């Protein structure tokens, strides 16, 4: 049997401030993964907050190869606290974001390189079930974004002060269920205990 304290330790990291109704809703949403595509809060709940996992239009991406810059839509990767204006003070802070990529445009490219319909359907199924390790899938948010992906190895930084000052618009905010999925994907992509490298000095 595992350490008797393990369960109590785990409890510390579960949501503590949810009402019973919210707990039941969260349970229902989690229990229907991966079919559940209800990812977003309604717009009335956006409140202009800048939170991890949010989608915004107004990020500036810089093309590494050409040096071009463009205003695009992206998803906030930075931790919410790190980019809170209340915590920023006079210190420079960057907001890390991942550009949104429309899934339909990627499908067009897959057709262009000769992928069969079956191969594309299989890949789309993996993407929608969050099985592709380097990307996070975003279902359609009606009237806001079509189905999109963000690449966890294509991250950009935008000075927070500049982002706050420029014209921008909120696209979506992840609900609790989708936020947890996002954290799990981030963890799996960036943090692997079994990396296979022996990080010890050689024996003398």
């Amino acid at each position: 049997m595992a350490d008797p304290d393990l369960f109590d330790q785990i409890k510390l990291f579960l949501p503590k401030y949810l009402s019973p109704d919210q707990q039941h809703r969260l349970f229902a949403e989690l229990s229907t993964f991966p079919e559940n595509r209800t990812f977003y809060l309604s717009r009335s709940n956006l409140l202009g907050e800048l939170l991890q996992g949010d989608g915004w239009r107004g990020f500036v991406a810089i093309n590494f190869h050409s040096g071009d810059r463009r205003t695009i839509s992206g998803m906030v990767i930075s931790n919410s606290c790190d980019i809170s204006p209340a915590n920023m003070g006079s210190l420079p802070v960057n907001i890390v974001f991942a550009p949104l990529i429309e899934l339909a445009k990627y499908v067009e490219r897959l057709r262009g390189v000769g992928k069969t319909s079956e191969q594309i359907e299989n890949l789309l199924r993996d993407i929608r079930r969050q099985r592709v390790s380097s990307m996070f899938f975003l279902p359609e948010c009606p009237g806001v974004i079509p189905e999109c992906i963000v690449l966890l190895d294509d991250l950009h930084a935008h000075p927070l002060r500049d982002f706050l000052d420029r014209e921008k618009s909120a696209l979506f905010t992840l609900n609790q269920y989708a936020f947890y999925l996002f954290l799990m994907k981030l963890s799996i992509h960036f943090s692997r205990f079994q990396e296979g490298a022996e990080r010890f000095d050689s024996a003398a």
Partner: protein
Amino acid sequence: MTITDQRQIEFQARGSSGSSWRATTALSIALIFAQYANGLHLDTAERRPSPTLIQGTAARAESLRITELDLFAQINRIFDGLLKTQVDLDSDARRALYENLWDLYA
């Protein structure tokens, strides 16, 4: 047998993996949420703290504990599933995506 022991047995009965794997995964989940426990914002309506949550009888507290277990079991199930099923893009699919990636930005 304490209530915690009983809950652990219930939890183990729900799990589909071996105990050592479960413990490892549970630790992983705990580590993930340890990173975010202090920083998690509850500002929106969906995440707003409920001032009544910790009030009530012992029976109500017990009921909440069971619900927390259910939440954890689901989070554990999803994390397990994701860990076991992650795949990489094949070379053609990767090339199609990353060549001129700039042009795909929304």
